[in-house]
């Protein structure tokens, strides 16, 4: 031993158990930070691939760009790739309705248009179509076949099939083939509905600035610019309001992770220092200066950090690895390129950097405290066992048994430890509850398949035969058949219900004398059966949704997010009790809004005023219609193709068969990509909270070994001792839980009401979560003190008293 600081490793080696507890504490904090930040980093990588798959790899788009504009933009040094996408509207391909488009070949990859057979259409008379469409009963085409395209204006032209490309889930689900012409071919037709010039910038480009430059240089107005907000959001380059709000939620929660990390480490060091008051006093007696004591404590912090950081970083990386492994296993085709072992520089440096910084900060205060220890403490041992201060626990003694009162009093005696322990538990709860809002967002904000999502749909313009539903139900493999009727009806309501955005889009709003709107557009009316109503209730924002309520009260359900011309728009602000007047066969009738639904999973291609749902009985009364327009089917997992063949055999020529399975799978993938990480975050936080509470409680018992020995020496029974320790731990847990739950609820409410409203996430009092947390914390508290208590029991009383 050549230097007094060599005392540090000797102390750590001599107190292996305590050192281990401290190292674990610091390691879990580092693991929390590394894990959460690595997962966030990797999440962005995965989500970027997912978003590129779902929305395309472009950043901004210019509508109707001229030749000169495309050339100028193309020649920019910051542009990676660009291409023109033209939509030409509907046409009939050998009699089947299809959607026509054209896309520059070099940009096809960016929009996930993947040629699987033949070649990309380049000649004026070449086309490329989806594989499913080519193989469909109606078309049955192979490469080289000649087809007839009929345009709505009567023009007919012959084309040759040059290639087949991979199915697009959305088109397949709608039963409308997507057909690509060559770009040259569209010039001949001169009927482009919309021309969009898509731009992908190089990595690291400030896209907002580039966009401004392009707009300024070429005089392009804002209404001609479109943005891939999903992709820009992931790159941190979006200024879309909803995205910015989402960033804010993330920032608050990740700041909380940092605070939690700092608090946990500080807590650990503080406890470790406080239990050694006597040792520091003795060192002061033999001439250790305050600066030297501070150095000793800081060196100890450093020694612990050096051991804890690699463990924490490794643990954080393992958590990320698990997430990567799940996603890669689940969707190998999409995420195959992402390495399993993902070294997130952001996460690792955050873990190491913040770990060190935190230890520095966290050991600063305890170091100062240790340095202030009076040398007299070593001589008298006065600070070693706290004697009750002026506030005697008299009232506690009167209410509880002596050992319980002592336990509560012990917890309350050392205020700083008390608040540190309670806040440590509280912050774990706050963190857990805070991250829960992402789960709400996941289920309501992110489009996902729901219990009611059909695998297959059947539609017919003439209405489906009334016995078809029953016959389909008998096909082997069919789980459920449920039908809907659709109609566009004349509906009116008070004009002041309309949203400002709708008023702006319509320009002129006329009202009658009684304040009712003179509707310029019809509304969409849908019928639901009992099963569909039951499914829809999870999306109910307000009111009720039962067949009885609807039939008894002449009721309808209003839909908040109206599906208007295939887009979600809020046209009116609905409330339960609102009156709606519908034109029925028997004249105008008044209906009452008995419930408000967040959205419906169907699209209306017309510009409708509002969307309403009602029972089948009321629907027939209003419209006179009783045949389903659409039948949805859910089929079971195995032998699906056989089931599909069985269903098709029952269908007449006029029934359209729509297969939504691929689209559902794609939607599920997007959901799962996000879900893995959100649940990953929650799992990490829950796991770390458990270890943290466990560790803090154990440390608190270990630190009291001598005191506990003394209590036993003066006649406290083992049972009493356990009760006393449990009472103390319960005091910490209870206070921490109450504070944590209260602040957690406040935080959840704040995050949702401030920033997630635009995603239609609603705040509910999280009773279930609170009950879960209460049970969980109670179990952890009991479990965490049992181990150390049992060890204390094994030690002889004299041994315990002399343990320090």
């Amino acid at each position: 031993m050549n230097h007094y600081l060599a005392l540090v490793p000797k102390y750590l080696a001599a107190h292996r158990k305590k050192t281990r507890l401290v190292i674990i504490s610091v390691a879990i904090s580092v693991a929390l930070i590394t894990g959460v930040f690595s997962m966030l980093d990797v999440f962005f990588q995965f989500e970027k691939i997912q978003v590129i798959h779902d929305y395309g790899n472009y950043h901004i788009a210019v509508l109707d760009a001229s030749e000169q504009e495309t050339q100028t933009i193309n020649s920019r040094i910051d542009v990676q790739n660009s291409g023109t996408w033209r939509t030409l509207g509907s046409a009939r391909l050998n009699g089947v309705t299809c959607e026509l488009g054209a896309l520059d070949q070099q940009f096809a990859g960016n929009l996930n248009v993947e040629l699987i057979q033949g070649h990309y259409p380049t000649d004026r008379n070449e086309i490329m179509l989806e594989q499913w469409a080519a193989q469909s009963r109606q078309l049955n085409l192979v490469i080289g076949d000649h087809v007839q395209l009929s345009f709505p204006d009567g023009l007919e032209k012959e084309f040759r099939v040059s290639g087949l490309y991979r199915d697009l889930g959305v088109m397949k689900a709608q039963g409308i083939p997507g057909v690509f012409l060559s770009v040259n071919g569209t010039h001949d037709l001169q009927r482009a509905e919309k021309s969009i010039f898509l731009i992908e910038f190089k990595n690291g480009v400030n896209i907002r600035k580039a966009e401004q430059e392009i707009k300024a240089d070429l005089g392009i107005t804002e209404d001609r610019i479109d943005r891939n907000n999903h992709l820009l959001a992931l790159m941190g380059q979006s200024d879309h309001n909803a995205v910015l709000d989402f960033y804010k939620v993330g920032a608050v929660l990740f700041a909380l992770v940092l605070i939690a990390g700092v608090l946990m480490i500080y807590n650990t060091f503080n406890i470790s220092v406080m239990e050694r008051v006597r040792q520091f006093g003795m060192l002061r007696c033999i001439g250790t200066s305050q600066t030297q004591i501070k150095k000793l404590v800081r060196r100890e912090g450093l020694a612990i950090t050096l051991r804890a950081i690699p463990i924490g970083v490794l643990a954080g990386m393992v958590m990320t690895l698990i997430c990567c492994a799940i996603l890669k296993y689940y969707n190998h085709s999409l995420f195959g390129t992402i390495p399993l072992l993902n070294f997130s520089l952001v996460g690792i440096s955050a873990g190491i950097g913040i770990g060190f910084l935190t230890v520095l900060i966290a050991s600063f205060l305890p170091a100062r405290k240790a340095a202030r220890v009076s040398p007299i403490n070593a001589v008298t041992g006065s600070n070693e066992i706290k004697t009750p201060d002026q506030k005697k626990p008299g009232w506690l003694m009167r209410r509880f048994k002596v050992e319980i009162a002592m336990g509560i009093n012990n917890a309350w005696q050392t205020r700083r430890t008390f608040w540190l322990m309670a806040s440590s538990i509280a912050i774990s709860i706050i963190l857990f509850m805070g991250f829960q809002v992402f789960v709400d967002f996941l289920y309501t904000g992110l489009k996902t398949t729901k219990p009611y999502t059909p695998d297959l749909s059947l539609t017919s313009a003439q209405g489906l035969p009334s016995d078809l539903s029953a016959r389909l139900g008998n096909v082997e493999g069919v789980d459920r058949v449920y039908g809907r009727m659709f109609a566009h009806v004349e509906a009116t309501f008070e004009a002041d219900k309309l949203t400002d955005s709708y008023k702006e889009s319509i320009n002129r709003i006329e009202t009658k004398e009684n304040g009712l709107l003179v509707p310029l557009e019809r509304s969409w009316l849908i019928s639901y059966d009992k099963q569909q109503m039951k499914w829809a209730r999870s999306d109910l924002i307000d009111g009720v949704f039962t067949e009885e309520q609807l039939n008894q009260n002449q009721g309808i359900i209003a839909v908040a997010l109206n599906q208007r011309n295939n887009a979600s728009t809020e046209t009116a602000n609905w409330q339960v009790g609102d009156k709606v007047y519908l034109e029925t066969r028997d004249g105008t009738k008044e209906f009452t809004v008995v419930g408000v639904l967040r959205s419906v999973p169907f699209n209306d291609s017309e510009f409708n005023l509002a969307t309403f749902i009602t029972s089948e009985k009321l629907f027939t009364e209003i419209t006179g219609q009783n045949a389903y327009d659409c039948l949805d089917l859910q089929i079971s997992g195995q032998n699906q193709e056989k089931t599909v063949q069985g269903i098709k055999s029952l269908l007449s020529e006029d029934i359209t068969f729509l297969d939504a399975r691929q689209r559902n799978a794609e939607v599920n993938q997007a959901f799962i990509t996000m879900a893995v990480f959100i649940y990953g975050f929650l799992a990490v936080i829950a796991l770390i909270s458990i270890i943290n509470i466990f560790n803090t409680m154990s440390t608190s018992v270990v630190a009291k070994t001598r005191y506990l020995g003394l209590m036993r020496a003066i006649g406290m029974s083992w049972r009493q001792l356990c009760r006393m320790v449990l009472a103390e731990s319960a005091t910490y847990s209870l206070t921490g839980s109450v504070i944590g739950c209260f602040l957690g609820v406040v935080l959840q409410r704040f995050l949702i009401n401030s920033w997630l409203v635009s995603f239609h996430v609603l705040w509910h009092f999280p009773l279930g979560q609170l009950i879960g947390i209460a049970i969980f914390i109670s179990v952890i508290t009991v479990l965490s003190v049992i181990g150390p208590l049992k060890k204390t029991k094994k030690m002889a009383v004299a041994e315990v008293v002399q343990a320090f």
Partner: protein
Amino acid sequence: MEILRIDQLSKTYGSGETKVEALKEASFSVSRGEFVSIVGQSGAGKSTLLHLIGGLDTPTAGRVIIDGMDIYTLLEEELAVFRRRSIGFIFQAYNLVPELNVEENMVLPLLLDYKKPDGRFIDELLDILGLTDRKHHLPGQLSGGQQQRVAIGRALATRPTMILADEPTGNLDSKNSREVMNLLRLSVERFNQTLLMITHNQNYATLADRVFQVEDGLVRELGGQ
């Protein structure tokens, strides 16, 4: 030659009804190489006096002058340095660092002073204290008497001007007590150090050059050998 002068030293704890005058205007001086023992009943103020002399506590009034230096005019940091260089403490409860072995415990005050321990001197001390065989043992592996000898070694290692011992034999049996006392005397004589020792044992008190009695905070000299 005067090494220690106590001048009107008082210490009061608490205030009002709970006020306790632990030491009342004590004044005396001690010469270099003297062995002074302090006797008195429990709670009389002996330890307070010793703590004040050692700079462990702060007086309510008065001065403590060691080697011409008024120690309470020093800053906290200077006082710590002064303590480790000029004063060696020996406590009833030994107060060794349990994680350090005998030799390391003895050299710790030197390391705190960033000094390289003089190997020969430490060996000599170990030899005098009869701890040569035990120098790599941890305190937990030693008997009470041996631990107290380590504490004496630690107090002597920096060759302090003065050694303050608070009932160094309080925890020891009579055989060990005698050994420790002999060692203390021997060391003090050999290194010409000043020793102030609190003791309850009248026999050991009479070994001292001078004896002070503390009673109700008042210090009075009883004489000496």
